C-alpha cells in the first residue's frame, strides 16, 4: 500500500508530461488546422522521405562508430583499479558539464575552412580539407555529443559481471579471446543495446547539430519538425505527423534491437 502512494507523484508526472503530449501529437497529426479529421498530413510526410533516409543513415553511422569507439574504451575502463575507473569515468563525463550548444559551436570554429584544424594543416604543409557543412561534420558532431551515452551503460554492465564467471571460463581452458567472445561480450549485450538506443534516438532526431555543422543544407528530420513549428508556414499538424512517423520508426527499430537482448524473457521483445 505504501509503495503505491509513493509512486503517485511519478504517475502524475508521466501522465502530464509524457502521455498527454503524446496524445496531443497523435491528435494534431490526424487533424487539420480547423480540427477536422484528415489524413492529408500523413500523406504529405512522404514528400520528405529523403530527409528520413538521410537522418536514419547518418544516425546509424554515428551509432556504429560510437559503438566501435565506445566499447573498447568502456572495456578498458572496467579493467582498471577503482581509483582509475573513477577518474576515467569523470573524464568521459567532463565534456557534458559544458553546454551542448557551446560544444557544438566549438566544433564549428575547429572545422571551418579557415578554422584551427585547417590552419594547422596548412602550416605543416598539408593542404586544406573542406570539412564544415558536410555530412561527415554532422556525424562527427553526433558522435562527439552522444558517445558518453554509449560508454556509460556498457561500462556499468561490464563492471557488474561476476569475476568468478570469467575465472570459471579460464579454468575450463578458454583463452582470452574466447573468454571475451563467449562470456564477457554476450553478458554485456544489455549495456550495448541501451547504449545503441541512447545514441541512435537523439542522433536521428537532432536538429541543432545539423544546423550548425551541416550548414542548413543537410536537412535532418529534427530540422524539418523545427521548420513546421518555427518556420514560415507554422504548421503544427504536419510537424506532428512527421514526429508521429518518426516515433513509429524508432519504436520498430527499438523492437528489433530488443530482440538481440537474448535470454530469459522472450515476451520482453514483443512489448516494444
Amino acid at each position: 500500500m505504501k509503495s503505491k502512494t509513493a509512486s503517485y507523484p511519478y504517475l502524475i508526472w508521466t501522465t502530464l508530461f509524457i502521455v498527454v503530449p503524446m496524445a496531443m501529437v497523435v491528435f494534431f497529426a490526424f487533424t487539420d488546422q480547423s480540427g477536422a479529421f484528415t489524413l492529408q498530413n500523413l500523406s504529405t510526410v512522404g514528400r520528405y522521405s529523403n530527409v528520413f533516409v538521410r537522418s536514419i543513415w547518418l544516425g546509424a553511422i554515428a551509432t556504429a562508430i560510437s559503438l566501435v569507439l565506445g566499447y573498447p574504451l568502456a572495456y578498458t575502463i572496467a579493467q582498471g583499479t577503482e581509483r582509475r575507473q573513477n577518474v576515467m569515468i569523470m573524464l568521459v563525463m567532463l565534456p557534458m558539464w559544458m553546454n551542448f550548444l557551446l560544444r557544438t559551436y566549438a566544433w564549428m570554429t575547429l572545422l571551418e575552412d579557415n578554422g584551427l584544424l585547417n590552419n594547422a594543416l596548412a602550416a605543416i604543409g598539408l593542404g586544406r580539407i573542406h570539412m564544415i557543412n558536410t555530412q561527415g561534420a554532422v556525424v562527427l558532431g553526433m558522435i562527439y555529443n552522444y558517445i558518453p551515452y554509449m560508454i556509460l551503460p556498457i561500462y556499468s554492465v561490464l563492471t557488474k559481471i561476476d569475476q568468478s564467471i570469467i575465472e570459471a571460463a579460464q579454468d575450463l581452458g578458454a583463452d582470452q579471446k574466447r573468454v571475451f567472445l563467449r562470456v564477457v561480450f554476450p553478458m554485456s549485450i544489455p549495456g550495448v543495446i541501451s547504449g545503441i538506443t541512447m545514441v541512435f534516438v537523439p542522433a536521428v532526431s537532432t536538429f541543432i547539430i545539423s544546423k550548425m555543422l551541416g550548414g542548413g543544407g543537410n536537412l535532418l528530420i529534427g530540422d524539418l519538425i523545427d521548420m513546421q513549428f518555427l518556420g514560415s508556414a507554422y504548421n503544427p499538424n504536419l510537424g506532428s505527423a512527421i514526429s508521429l512517423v518518426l516515433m513509429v520508426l524508432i519504436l520498430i527499430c527499438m523492437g528489433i534491437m530488443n530482440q538481440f537482448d537474448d535470454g530469459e524473457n522472450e515476451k520482453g521483445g514483443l512489448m516494444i
Partner: protein
Amino acid sequence: MNQVKRFFAALLCVGIFLSASGQTAYADTGEDASAPDTGVTINVYNWGEYIANGTDGSMDVNAEFTRRTGISVNYTTFDTNESLYSKLAGGGASYDVIIPSDYMVSKMAREGMLEKLNFDNIPNFQYIDEQFRNPEYDPENEYSVPYTWGLVGIFYNKNYVDPDEVKSWKVLWDEKYSGKILMFDNPRDTFGIAQKLLGFSFNSEDTNEWDQAASLLKQQKPLVQAYVMDQIFDKMAGGDAWLAPYYAGDAAILVEENENIGFTIPTEEGTNFFVDAMCIPKGAPHKEEAEAYINFLCDPEIAAANMDYVGYSTPETAAKELLPEEVQNNEIYYPPQEILDRSEVFVALSDEMNLYLDTLWAEVKMGGPGETATLIAILVFFLLLYIGIVVYKKRKLKKQMS
C-alpha cells in the same frame, strides 16, 4: 499589522489617484521632473538588440519613458517573426506592444490578432513620412506604426570580389565563388532573391513563379556554403565566406569593424524593402498606455536617439535630420529614391501559398522532392525485419523445447 494595512491602503489611494491623472502626466513631458509612478506596467515584445538601452552612451529609452509617464516597461525580446507568432497564436501570453515585420503584420491583422490603433493617442504619427503611410501590408494604416525600415543588400569581401559585380544578385550564382556564398536560412528572404532575379513579385500567388524560383535556387545550391542567419557575421568576418545577403541595419556594424568587408544594395534588380512596425495585439490589457509608448517612440528626438544605437533607418525625416551627417548621407541607410522605387515589401501569403512555399523550401534544401513510396518501403522493411526476427526466434525456441 494594522500599520501595514494602512500603508497599503494609502498606496492604493495614491495608485488610483495617479492612474486617474495619467492623461495629464503625458502632457508635461518636456519637464525634467519625473512623472509619478502610475503603477501600470506594459509588456513590450521586441527583437533582440533593437532598442537603445543606455549602453555605449546611448539613451535608455525605456527608462526615459518610465520617467516621463510613470508607466513601467517590462521589455522582452524574440528572435524570429515566427516565434512571435507562435507565442501569440498559442495564447497564454499577454503583451501590450509588439514589433513584428511587414508580412507578419498583415498575417496577424488578417487573422484578427491585432487591435486597431487609436491614432488620437498617437499624435506623433504626423512625423511619419508619407511614403511609409498606408503600406501594402497595412493598406488602411489601422494596425501599425512603422518603427524602422531597411533594405536587403550583399556583404562582399573586398579582397576577392569586385564591387561592380555586386550590383546584381547574379553574383550569388557565379561559379567563381563556389563554396564561398552564404544564403539566408529562411524561405521568404531566400526565395525573394531568386524572385527578383526572375523579375517576379515577392508576394506572388502563382505557384508557377514559385516553382521557377525554386529551380533557380536548386541550381545555386551546389555553390552555397551554408544556409545561415546570424552566423553570417562570423563567417564573413573570418573570411570563410566572401558573399552573403543581409539586412542593411545590422550590416553597418560589421562594415565598420572590418575593413575587408563591404556592403552594397544590388541596384540592378531591386531588393526587399522591410519595415518593422509597432502593433498592439488583440486583448492587450493596457491599450492606452501602449499607445502612449508607441507615441513616445515616434517622438523625433527619441527616435533619433534610438536609431543612433540600433543602426536601422528611421521612417521620420524629422528624426533622420537629428542623426550624424555621415549616417544621413549613407546610401546603405537612406538609399536614393530610384532604388526604393524598385524595391518591394513582403506581404503575408495565403495559407495555401505558405504551405506550398515551405514544401518548396524543404525541397531546395534536400535537393529534390522525395517519394512517398520510399518512406513506406523503409517502414515496411523495418517492420518485416522485426517480424522476421521474432518468428525466427520463436521457431528456434520451439526446436529447443522439442
